[in-house]
């Protein structure tokens, strides 16, 4: 008996505490279910684990840059820099809870598709990890721990995986003229706002795709380049206001250059990790779901929409980035959220690019521009509130990747968790 107990303890204490190994196990189960050859099972499971390791390294590079800015500004303002749980320690401590919640959420999500009218299958690989990640963080902030934390998080994540793509379906189908797939991406809340506004203010007569967009603007669609440039400028400005950003004997220009390069490089690493992970997990999950729920609609990542209206994406990015950066400046000067926000490159590009396509589908050029601008006001409100609430867990992460469903569901998780307070 002792041997069995020891093995179980080792599994729960070590194996399940390690996200890359967990992800590898999930990929392995998927590949075994599909009766793949042995060599492919080994290759696929290991690639999924490498993907998770690489993705985490990319995220760490990105959050380190934002964390430097925040520390410098907090020091300048005389705010005590928060110690204790932070982005890095959160994953170390609660990564296993996220992994197990993810696995349970996938099972519940498939059951929802099988037994309810909501027939969506969520196939955006990296979001299968990030959604439970923010929900667990919200739960931890509310004081939940242990099995209750995992079960509550799994249920919330499953509801998200099923309901979000389904709510957005009519807008997506209007934009693509194709009802064969859904969108499973944290743009949902922003796209709903954009589509709703665009319908009232827009005019479908004028399409974004009839416009001639100058070729010179196309480098904006290289997210690593626009992200790196923005970070360089942000560091220059922050360094002038908060001199502690520059270490003793260094100079601001070089600090800013390094920060920009690290941010752009971190983004490329993140994308590479996502690719490795997604290409292993998704075909497996799709294979399982096709057997269980024939005829369900797959929900894909947002770039699949970008092919339909490439001009709308660039217009939406510019509209959202300008609107939201002005709001970031106002929020930081007035200190309305009590935290320092940074301009939101990634969310402006992916989430608001998607929101622009939905806006264009409802109201042409004007719909895309105004709808996305209004959505980006909500983006800043969401990132500000969620960032303020997540001070002990994933604040720096939220400041980069939030302002969307991820922020919204972190907030929802915190409030739902509070209902279970004291269990």
């Amino acid at each position, binding site marked *: 008996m002792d041997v069995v107990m020891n093995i179980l303890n080792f599994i729960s204490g070590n194996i399940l505490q390690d996200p890359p190994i967990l992800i590898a196990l999930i990929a392995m189960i998927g590949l075994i279910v599909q009766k793949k050859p042995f060599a492919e099972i080994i290759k696929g499971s290991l690639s999924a684990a490498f993907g998770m390791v690489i993705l985490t390294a990319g995220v760490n590079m990105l959050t380190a840059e934002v964390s430097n800015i925040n520390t410098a500004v907090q020091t300048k303002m005389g705010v005590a820099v928060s110690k204790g749980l932070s982005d890095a320690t959160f994953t170390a401590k609660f990564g296993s809870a996220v992994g197990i919640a993810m696995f349970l959420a996938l099972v519940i999500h498939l059951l929802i598709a099988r037994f309810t009218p909501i027939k969506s299958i969520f196939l*955006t*690989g*990296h979001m299968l990890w990030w959604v439970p990640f923010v929900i667990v963080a919200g739960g931890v902030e509310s004081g939940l721990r242990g099995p209750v934390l995992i079960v509550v998080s799994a249920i919330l994540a499953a509801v998200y995986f099923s309901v979000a793509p389904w709510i957005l379906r009519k807008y997506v189908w209007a934009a693509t003229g*194709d009802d*064969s*797939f859904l969108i499973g991406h944290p743009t949902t809340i922003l796209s709903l706002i954009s589509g709703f506004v665009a319908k009232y203010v827009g005019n479908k007569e004028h399409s974004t795709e009839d416009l001639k967009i100058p070729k010179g603007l196309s480098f904006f*669609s290289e997210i690593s380049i626009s992200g790196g440039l923005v970070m360089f400028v942000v560091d220059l400005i922050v360094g002038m206001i908060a001199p502690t950003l520059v270490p003793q004997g260094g100079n601001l220009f070089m600090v800013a250059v390094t920060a920009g390069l690290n941010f752009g490089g971190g983004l490329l690493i993140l*994308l590479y990790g*996502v*690719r490795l992970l*997604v*290409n292993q997990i*998704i*075909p497996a999950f*799709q294979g399982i779901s096709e057997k269980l729920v024939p005829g369900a609609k*797959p929900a*894909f*990542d*947002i*770039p*699949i929409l*970008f*092919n339909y209206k*490439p001009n709308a994406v660039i217009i939406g990015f510019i509209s959202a980035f300008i609107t939201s950066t002005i709001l970031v400046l106002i929020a930081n000067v007035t200190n309305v959220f009590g935290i320092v926000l940074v301009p939101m490159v990634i969310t402006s590009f992916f989430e608001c690019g998607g929101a622009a396509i939905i806006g264009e589908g409802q109201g042409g050029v004007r719909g895309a521009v105004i709808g996305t601008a209004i959505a980006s006001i909500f983006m800043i409100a969401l990132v500000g509130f969620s960032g303020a609430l997540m001070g002990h867990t994933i604040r720096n992460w939220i400041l980069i990747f939030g302002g969307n469903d991820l922020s919204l569901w972190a907030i929802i998780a915190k409030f739902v968790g509070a209902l279970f307070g004291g269990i």
Partner: protein
Amino acid sequence: MKILAVCGFGVGSSMVLKMTLDKVVKELGIDATVENTDIATAKATKADVYFTSHELEESLRTATSQPIYPIKKYMDKDEVKAALEDYLKQKETNN
């Protein structure tokens, strides 16, 4: 034969395109491997034929002399099938 599905980031749409291509390859009963990747990697990757979006076609054209087929609807098996059949026909005439 090696088929490459290409999109901007190599994570979302190229994977969908790969899944559709896999189904078509199976239907036509041809011996081919299908891989998917991002545009930057694709430019440095050799393949017999490339499938991508209309916006990336030009960019890919600068890196390879092999045939490139732009696809509008990645989920549309008929569109992908027509393109792949066209490629196979071209190959026949060239040999």
